[in-house]
């Protein structure tokens, strides 16, 4: 599924088909023509002009069009958290966010966390605590963790686990992820 997504993405004229990355066998539904619209997103503090269809997810806009590949696509259905970004300071899943609806809002992705090459404390804590194996879920984990700490939900390991439950890690790096968040929260 991921492979198909990545190959399809390079072909802008075939967006409508490339967009359909459903893992489940779906019947060949007729694809109606859609009007592309010009939008400007505010991503990591900079304006990002894009041309998207109304159905384009924020995730696809970031990855395919803006070349911001740090945000990952796992399930594309809201159930894994790999695509987590911040919109106006709130953590959301970008796969279920329409890019056109993100206009006028401040979007932060994993690429926007480090300042002048210095890692964000949560990024540094993930490195120090080895909070990942393959790293695929990591950008989403870190975006969720940064928000979790700001929300005030890092009071205990149990609380961290509960408030990180929207981020799945297939490598099972959970103990180290919790340790990294605990460290980063104590530091801040």
């Amino acid at each position, binding site marked *: 599924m991921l492979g198909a997504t990545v190959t399809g993405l390079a072909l802008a004229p075939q967006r409508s088909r490339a967009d*359909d990355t459903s893992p489940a066998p779906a019947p060949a539904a007729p694809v109606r023509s859609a009007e592309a619209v010009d939008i400007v997103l505010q991503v990591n503090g900079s304006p990002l002009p894009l041309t998207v269809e*109304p159905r384009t997810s924020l995730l696809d806009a970031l990855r395919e069009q803006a070349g911001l590949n740090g945000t990952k696509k796992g399930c594309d259905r*809201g*159930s894994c958290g790999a695509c987590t970004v911040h919109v106006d300071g*709130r953590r959301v899943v970008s796969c279920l966010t329409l890019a056109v609806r993100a206009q006028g809002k401040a979007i932060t992705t994993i690429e926007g966390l480090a300042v002048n090459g210095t890692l964000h404390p949560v990024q540094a804590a993930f490195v120090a605590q080895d909070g990942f194996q393959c790293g695929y879920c990591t950008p989403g984990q870190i975006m*969720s963790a940064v928000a979790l700490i700001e929300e005030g939900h890092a009071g205990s390991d149990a609380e961290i686990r509960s408030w990180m439950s929207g981020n799945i890690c297939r490598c099972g790096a959970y103990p180290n992820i919790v340790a990294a968040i605990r460290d980063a929260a104590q530091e801040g």
Partner: protein
Amino acid sequence: MQSFTLAAPNGLDAATDAGGRGGRYIAGGTDLLQLAKDNVETPDRLIDLEPLPLTDITVTDDSLRLGAMARMSEVAAHPAVVARWPVISQALLASASPQIRNMGTIGGNLLQRTRCGYFRDTGFACNKRVPGSGCPAREGENRMLAILGTSEHCIASHASDLAVALIVLEASVDLRAPDGTTRTIPLAELHKLPGDTPHVETTLRPGELITAVAVPASRAGMRSHYLKVRDRASFEFALVSAAVAIDAGAGTVHDIRVAAGGVGTKPWRLPEVEEALRGHPLTPKTLADAAALAGQGATPATQNGFKQVLLRRAVLRALQTATA
């Protein structure tokens, strides 16, 4: 996913007018877009509810009013909700993930569609998705599905935790029709039993918009509790859940409402449990005897008979916790 247009209405009139002409409302989009990605729903015109003034959470001495576009996370964290209607906050915090709760709205949550796997996969027949095509769940994967309110045509469980909490609080729903008329209905009358038309899920009229949910204040509401039993500790739909609101001052049950989730084809009130408690002394025995009545008339399928026992135990635990 098929393509669609997205209209940003400049007010309620424009929104319901477009809804009356066949457009589909999009709130947080967390269910609608998931269904659209899988071609289960194929909307061609979406109406964005975000520009509408429907996000307020208003608290008075007598009631709580939740705008249809109030987000799940904001309602869950609202201090008055936590203090006076805890069952709402608990049900919301047990729902989905922090990210989804930051997006999902009160109106959208009540109208989310079933998680029956056949419904959500267009490779299968499903009476709810394609009327008359059949119900593979009856003989297939039905462990998660309903044991109450089922019909031979559909046994899908209603998935909303919030709705279960709101029916014990006897909430009502404010609606606005495309011609501008408004009406208020009890939440208990919003969802329909599947019967022989499982594709008709609510009593909403074409284009009708949910504008708010109103919740009366009550002593029982202040002593309310939500218990959710699921396959993992978090980020999972309910196998069984129980919502309880109880007023048992001076050791006698004056007011009691009990409902269950995960077991019904709609949010399921349990009057048999309530009647066994109302007016009776609050003792471990009366609680246990009442809970043992939960789920009368259940019609389990091949894999979900365990829910009958789980329901009785969940109801008892919720009653015990609410009165502890």
